[in-house]
């Protein structure tokens, strides 16, 4: 995609991808046009209220705001369900535009009730408009996009606060002081146009809030939608409850800090206009700090430390500042604590908190957001207000508030730690397993052995009646001679093969069974046949015939050999005729070999193992030999491991062994396979890794030697890096192959890498990530990356991400070159 001038400009501030510049800029501007007016409104609100009613009346303002928010939540939720997003937001903006003009007219006239109403109105303004903004962000971006861009468009809000604050400070003492709310109305009007632009094209292509399934749902009954519905939504989810807890605790602390700040300022700065100027400058100053924090640090901090540690940053700073106020409740500390609170709240904390919402399913998220960001936002201030009222009632010192804050912050830290863990789980639930292993599907739905037996039975009909009969006998023995199978293999009356065993069960179809003869009982037949074949006299009787067949002294020797090979499988392992099997296992005919191998599987004699293993090298007999060796059970593991470890053994045999071993999900097998993985045997690496992954899926509790696997992963990553660097450099005049295409063409490397990761990280998580990276939509790829970002250890993440992230070739190679220079890569882990 062509890089526009806007893209080039914005990409200096954030990790922007081509095509994202328009929406990012619009969101920046949208947020700016909400917060700039609010900065003006807030300054006027604070000044008016403190001047006319005083700080001791603040708890009342907090309390009434909290109560009213319940009704606002109900109203907003119903409106959200009833109206399209754009209509709702633009209507809200129109409302606040009109009411700001109204307050501009009436506020100077009355100093008792109107400041309180204005206070409440200002709080409703910021809560509703900011929540709506973040709902739009959730609609548009997936977690990876949001992480990259939130620093930039979030700074739009902060810049708005700065500009609004400075406008207030400049105009408050001038003759334009009464026009401040008109300026607010003007900004909100422009905001309406920006919202229109944000939502119009995005609605068609990027809106993620409305899934196909929810679009088809019956619209909810508006009577059921409301405050209670939102409350139950939050109550029903552990993750949302923790989020709600965090918001509550944050705002209680913030309320306490706000009171301490305002109390100290009121004594230090006197006069209504001076207070307005002070708040104007203070808000602008704190916004400047927040702006630079947001623009330069937020995305980098989140990227570097992850969500878990970033969440701890804000409360820890406040904890230190609270102790500062306790020991020195002076103007400087008041400015420091309030400045820290608000600058961090507007920047890092707001961003991280919004990121916590993104992986929540849309049908739950928007109700939760409204409840938490609108109602709880103010209700928590109400709780803070009650605490303040109690402190004031008890006439306790302002320092005591610091102790209360410290206690609440400690609880808040615990909640933050827990939410980070739940965030990973929430992300994981958004990443779906796209396909199960096909061998598992087949195992669950198809009896492959019985299927092959039926095919062999049908094939044998044209070869020999004895073979056919023996196959029918197998079907009986394995309880697979169902009515459907009988019908499938039944003969017509005029076919000469009707004298087969099968005819005994096909009354009326062969014509050779006298009518009135009772059919044999299946169990009885099985016993009789086995008894006959184990008799010494039978063995002696058949010996000459078998020797004649094996020597090739008769016509149609191949068919006779097949019959003999099959029959031997029904004899006792020590019987004289069974000793002829090794010769049949060396036969040139694949059909004879098939029966000989099958009989070896029945007899399970150690003597036949080398011959069976030899057959692994031939495509015609590999599957049969593998199946036969599996029949030996776990005692074959050691023997197979020996063949695997033999450097002189053929590659085709070695390749066939790991899939057999994968059928024995034991620690012994795992240990053998891992040992072989560390020998330099690139030709069979794929099979070894696949076998280990299969075992991991079956039995995740086995020990997969994490340190050794980690070393192997690092080696494979280094191999990938070298491959990419090699394909990126070519002689002059020769067209360079695209590095990422070259890598992705090496899909087996990536497959192996993820299978290895699944041995030391939760298996299903790694498989989900791999599948979504290979075949997912843009969003599911983003969620897969986010899951890996939060699941992998930092070192592993750093090395793997350049291989899987959607970044430019140039960036990928740059990161690879950097990582390859890093001493840590070649350190203790290797």
């Amino acid at each position, binding site marked *: 995609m062509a890089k526009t001038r806007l893209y080039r400009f914005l990409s200096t501030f954030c990790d922007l991808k081509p095509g994202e510049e328009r929406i990012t800029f619009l969101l920046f501007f949208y947020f700016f046009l909400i917060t700039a007016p609010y900065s003006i409104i807030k300054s006027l609100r604070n000044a008016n209220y403190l001047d006319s009613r005083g700080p001791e009346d603040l708890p009342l303002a907090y309390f009434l705001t909290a109560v009213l928010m319940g009704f606002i939540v109900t109203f907003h939720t119903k409106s959200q369900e009833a109206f399209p997003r754009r209509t709702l937001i633009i209507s809200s903006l129109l409302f606040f535009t009109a009411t700001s003009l109204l307050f501009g007219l009436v506020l100077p006239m009355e100093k008792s009730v109107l400041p309180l109403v204005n206070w409440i109105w200002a709080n409703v303004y910021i809560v509703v408009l900011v929540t709506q903004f973040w709902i739009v962000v959730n609609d548009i971006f997936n977690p990876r996009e949001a992480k990259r861009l939130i620093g930039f468009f979030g700074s739009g809000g902060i810049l708005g606060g700065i500009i609004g604050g400075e406008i207030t400070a400049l105009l408050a003492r001038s003759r334009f002081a009464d026009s401040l709310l008109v300026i607010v109305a003007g900004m909100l009007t422009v905001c309406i146009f920006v919202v229109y632009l944000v939502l119009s094209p995005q609605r068609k292509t990027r809106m993620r809030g409305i899934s196909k399934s929810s679009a088809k749902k019956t619209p909810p009954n508006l009577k059921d939608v409301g405050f209670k519905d939102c409350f139950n939504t939050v109550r029903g989810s552990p993750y949302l409850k923790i989020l709600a807890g965090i918001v509550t605790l944050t705002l209680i602390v913030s309320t306490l800090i706000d009171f301490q700040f305002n109390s100290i300022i009121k004594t230090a700065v006197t006069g209504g206009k001076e207070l307005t100027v002070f708040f104007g400058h203070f808000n602008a100053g704190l916004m400047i700090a927040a702006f630079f924090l947001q623009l330069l640090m937020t995305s980098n901090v989140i990227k570097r430390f992850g969500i878990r540690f970033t969440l701890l940053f804000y409360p820890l700073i406040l904890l230190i500042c609270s102790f500062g106020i306790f020991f020195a409740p002076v103007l400087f500390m008041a400015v420091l604590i309030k400045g820290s609170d608000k600058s961090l709240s507007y920047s890092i904390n707001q961003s991280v908190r919004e990121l916590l919402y993104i992986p929540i399913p849309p049908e739950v998220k928007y109700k939760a957001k409204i409840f938490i960001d609108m109602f709880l936002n103010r209700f928590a201030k109400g709780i803070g207000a009650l605490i303040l009222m109690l402190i004031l009632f008890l006439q306790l010192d302002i320092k005591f508030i610091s102790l209360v804050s410290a206690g609440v912050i400690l609880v808040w830290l615990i909640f933050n730690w827990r939410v980070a863990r739940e965030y990973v789980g929430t992300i994981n639930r958004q990443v779906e397993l*796209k*396909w199960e*292993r*096909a*061998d598992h*599907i*087949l195992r669950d*739905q*198809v*009896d*492959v052995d*019985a*299927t*092959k*037996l*039926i*095919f*062999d039975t*049908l*094939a044998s009909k044209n070869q020999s009646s004895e073979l056919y009969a023996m196959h029918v006998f197998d079907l009986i023995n394995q309880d697979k001679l169902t009515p*459907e*199978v009988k019908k*499938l293999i039944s003969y017509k009356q005029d076919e000469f093969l009707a004298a087969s065993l099968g005819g005994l069960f096909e009354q009326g179809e062969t014509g050779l069974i006298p009518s009135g003869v009772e059919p044999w009982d299946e169990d009885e037949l099985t016993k009789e046949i086995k008894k006959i074949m184990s008799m010494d006299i039978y063995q002696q009787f058949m010996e000459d015939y078998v020797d004649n067949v094996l020597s090739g002294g008769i016509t149609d020797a191949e068919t006779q050999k097949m019959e003999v090979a099959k029959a031997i499988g029904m004899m006792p392992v020590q019987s004289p005729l069974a000793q002829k099997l090794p010769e049949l296992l060396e036969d040139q*005919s*694949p*059909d004879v070999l*098939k029966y000989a191998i099958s009989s070896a599987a029945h007899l399970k004699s150690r003597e036949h193992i080398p011959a069976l293993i030899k057959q692994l090298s031939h*495509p*015609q*007999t590999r*599957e*049969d030999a593998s199946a036969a060796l599996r029949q030996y059970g776990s005692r074959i593991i050691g023997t197979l491991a020996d063949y695997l470890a033999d450097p002189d053994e053929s590659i085709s045999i070695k390749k066939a062994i790991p899939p057999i071993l994968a059928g024995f999900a034991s620690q012994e097998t795992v240990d053998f396979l891992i040992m072989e993985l560390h020998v330099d045997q690139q030709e069979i690496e794929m099979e070894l890794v696949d076998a280990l992954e299969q075992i991991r899926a079956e039995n995740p509790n086995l020990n997969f030697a994490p340190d050794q696997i980690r070393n192997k992963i690092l080696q494979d990553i280094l191999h990938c890096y070298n491959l990419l660097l090699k394909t990126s450099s070519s002689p002059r005049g020769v067209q360079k192959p695209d590095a990422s295409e070259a890598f992705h*063409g090496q*899909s*087996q490397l990536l*497959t192996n890498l993820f299978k290895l990761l699944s041995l030391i990280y939760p298996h299903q998580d790694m498989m989900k990530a791999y*599948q979504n990276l*290979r*075949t997912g939509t843009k969003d599911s790829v983003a969620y897969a990356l986010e899951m890996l970002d939060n699941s992998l250890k930092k070192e592993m993440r750093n090395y793997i991400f350049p291989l899987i992230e959607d970044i430019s070739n140039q960036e990928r190679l740059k990161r690879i070159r950097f990582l390859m220079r890093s001493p840590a890569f070649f350190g203790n882990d290797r």
Partner: protein
Amino acid sequence: MIINSRSKEGVVIFDIEGEIRRSDITDITLHQLVKDQLDKGQRNILLNFESVDFIDSFGVGEILASYISTHNLGGSMKMAKISPKLYMVFQVTMLTKVLEIFNEEDLAIKSFVKE
């Protein structure tokens, strides 16, 4: 057995002629041919059985192995134009539960596109 391959609308089609039995196989098996296509990045595989007379258990193993290899890489393998008798065998053995089988090649190709 003779196996020819061709491409149509992003689907690799293997036209199989003759009998799929172990005695007719050389070093290159159906499964190997499918794996070669998977290594080239192909993910949609169609087996055309119009000219297949006979399958033994080895043939069944080849089909299932090809299915497993394709599916485990996120691809799809389907079958078309198998004879009524063979189809009945597939039904009795419940292979039709897992393998998608179409009467006509065009229908099979369309089903890949729909996915």
